[in-house]
């Protein structure tokens, strides 16, 4: 059982403000992903929860109790880092047993054996138990580090970019494994990453951190479909949401630089979307379509081939925007094409603040 709350947390290092006014609520058994670029304050947040760093201001509550005076050990959290820190001369079994050996734990041998066996089974490293850790692959080493966290049965798992050092295929495989593991254990996970695909695919909830502030918290679906501002819109999604400057005139979006126009449906219109107000129109690449009879002409600037689909970069004057098209669509660089968008899916942001009109209140 662990319900974690951060209330109005700030942290400064000298003149540098790492976190300011951070509020987070991580439910018991939730897989919470903190997503942000390097320097956003993700690792600092994690270390504050772990008790390795004291906040300058604010409170950390675990199950409703203020843990300000608790040391890292008392908080009973397990930390898994990008750099696996295993004992190289020990076998995998010894590495897994190690966190259970300290006298204060006073665990009976049978219990230790049982926990190691169970962790090894969960992580599918049973066949490696008697191998020295310096003879493991990167993915195997990371599984062992996670195993060392599991055997302790901590209240909370804190993970700091645990997959970042692995190659793409392995990352893909371990993503599902970790998510599976969290569901099996029913444990609270706080997972930190700069990779939006990891955040989207694993998180029950995602918190987007930018310059030490939480910009938006929500399910992956909410973050993707209803980004709070242009930063979230351009950070989440690969390729990111197209963002084009323009303004509304009647029920049309009129783009500033080239003056091309596209219709907006009633569904996408929000209060505050008044005619003439400077806006940024956001549209996901999958909602931009190439059609011969479509209203706007563009040139194909680039084609990224993903096998299952192609991502086409379109150029209209100086404006670039991307469209996801089926793999069989034949497009060549510099070919003229026509495009339209799905008028229901347009998100409008205020030009000055970057905040979505749906979120402004």
């Amino acid at each position, binding site marked *: 059982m662990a319900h974690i709350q951060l209330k109005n947390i700030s942290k400064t290092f000298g003149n540098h403000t790492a976190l300011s006014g951070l509020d987070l609520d991580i439910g018991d058994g939730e897989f919470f992903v903190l997503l942000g670029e390097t320097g956003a304050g993700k690792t600092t947040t994690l270390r504050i929860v772990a008790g390795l760093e004291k906040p300058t201001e604010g409170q950390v509550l675990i199950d409703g109790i203020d843990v300000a005076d608790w040391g890292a050990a008392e908080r009973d959290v397990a930390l898994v880092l990008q750099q696996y820190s295993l004992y190289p001369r020990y076998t995998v079994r010894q590495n897994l047993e190690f966190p259970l050996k300290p006298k204060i734990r006073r665990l009976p041998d049978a219990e230790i054996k049982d926990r190691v066996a169970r962790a090894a089974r969960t992580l599918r490293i049973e066949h490696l138990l008697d191998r020295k850790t310096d003879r493991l692959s990167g993915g195997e080493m990371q599984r062992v580090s996670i195993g060392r966290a599991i055997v302790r049965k901590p209240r909370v798992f804190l993970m700091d970019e645990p997959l970042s050092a692995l*190659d*793409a*295929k392995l990352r*893909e495989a371990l*993503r*599902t494994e970790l*998510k*599976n593991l969290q*569901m099996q254990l029913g444990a609270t996970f706080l997972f930190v990453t700069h990779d939006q*695909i990891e955040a*989207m*695919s*694993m998180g029950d909830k995602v918190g987007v951190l930018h310059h030490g502030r939480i910009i938006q918290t929500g399910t*992956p*679906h909410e973050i*993707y479909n209803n980004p709070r501002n242009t930063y979230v819109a351009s950070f*989440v*999604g*690969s390729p990111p949401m197209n963002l084009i400057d323009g303004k509304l005139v009647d029920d049309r979006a009129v783009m500033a630089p080239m003056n091309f126009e596209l219709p907006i449906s009633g569904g996408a219109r929000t209060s505050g979307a008044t005619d003439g107000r400077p806006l940024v129109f956001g549209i*996901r*690449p*999958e909602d931009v379509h190439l059609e011969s009879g479509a209203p706007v002409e563009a040139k194909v*600037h*680039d*084609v*990224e*081939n*993903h*096998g*299952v689909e192609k991502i086409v*970069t379109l150029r209209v004057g100086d404006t670039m925007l991307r469209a*996801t098209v089926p*793999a069989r669509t034949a497009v060549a*660089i*510099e070919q003229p094409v026509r495009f339209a968008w799905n008028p229901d899916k347009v998100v409008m942001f205020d030009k000055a603040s970057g905040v979505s009109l749906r979120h402004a209140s």
Partner: protein
Amino acid sequence: MTQIELRGVQKFFGAVQVIKDLNLKIDDNEFIVLLGQSGCGKTTTLRAIAGLETIDQGDILIDGKPVQHLKAADRDIAMVFQSFSLYPHMSVYENIAFPLRATRKSRSEIDSEVRSVAKTLQISDLLTRKPSALSGGDMQRVAIGRALVRRPKAMLMDEPIGALDAKLREEMRAEIKRLHIKQGSTSIYVTHDQIEAMSLADRIVIMHEGVLQQVGTPDEVYSQPANLFVAQFVGSPVMNVADASVTENASAASVSVGGAATGFEFPRALLSKLNGHAGGQLALGIRPEGVLVRHEAAEGFLPVETQIVEPLGSFDIVDLKVGSKMLRARTRSGFVSGPGERLYARVDPSQAHFFDTASGKSLGVRL
């Protein structure tokens, strides 16, 4: 006009053979990408073509002439590396002009060539700067400019954008492609990134442990992989592969995976196309988009239970349990609400691949 050909090339580092009997023909103006994991021999191959590495056996021909005994400088090939290797004390202009110094060109000729290359690469306003004042992308533009200015017979690039961040990598990739279309020189490009390969290449050469696995257009490599290695290396999420047994029933063939009691329905033609392999060690390969799912039962669809759902924004990847095996399906976003849901699935026969599990080779079945 530059054709490059490799004939029976072998290369050892001590006892380790890093290139095994490599044969490859590259046409004039072609953009070839050597794709593989680190240690597969792709960079060694590139360096051998450039003349930076000797070979132990075989021939390297440029325009039909063997060049394996020629020094790098005499092969007239330009190379761009991941690390930019610019002269730090020279301006951008001097860096680009440097390769022309040794030629007998006049100062004004050199000047016009440097400026024309700079214009192509959109770095005209940076010519007076020192490399230290440039961003990573601009440094690589200068490095490419320095390679281009010589008008070499071929351009060889070794992960030229591997050190750049994701956004810049995408931009530079587009620029390299556009530049190639405009300049049209024979290019060989090394990368471990399959999207880069798929997006840039006229033909992709996939290598693994020093052995060439397949040469083909991006579409061929994606939709007709020659073996299990290629099938699982290209494409993300990775192709599902499962040991399969094929049986015949009254009207159709049935392909069963993971020991499931009921198999996926296939046209009868599968049996003849498997050509006697039906009884042997077979694996079914199917990409996530080839696993078709629906909410209601239907002819030919098997009941399955959903496990993990990965929302990836514009689509979801859903794990389905079939017998003891997990098949991943690509669905539209939000199609499945979560784990434990009942769905009906089938394998699209036209997107299915069959492999001999012993050799890993594709049996070339197309339905």
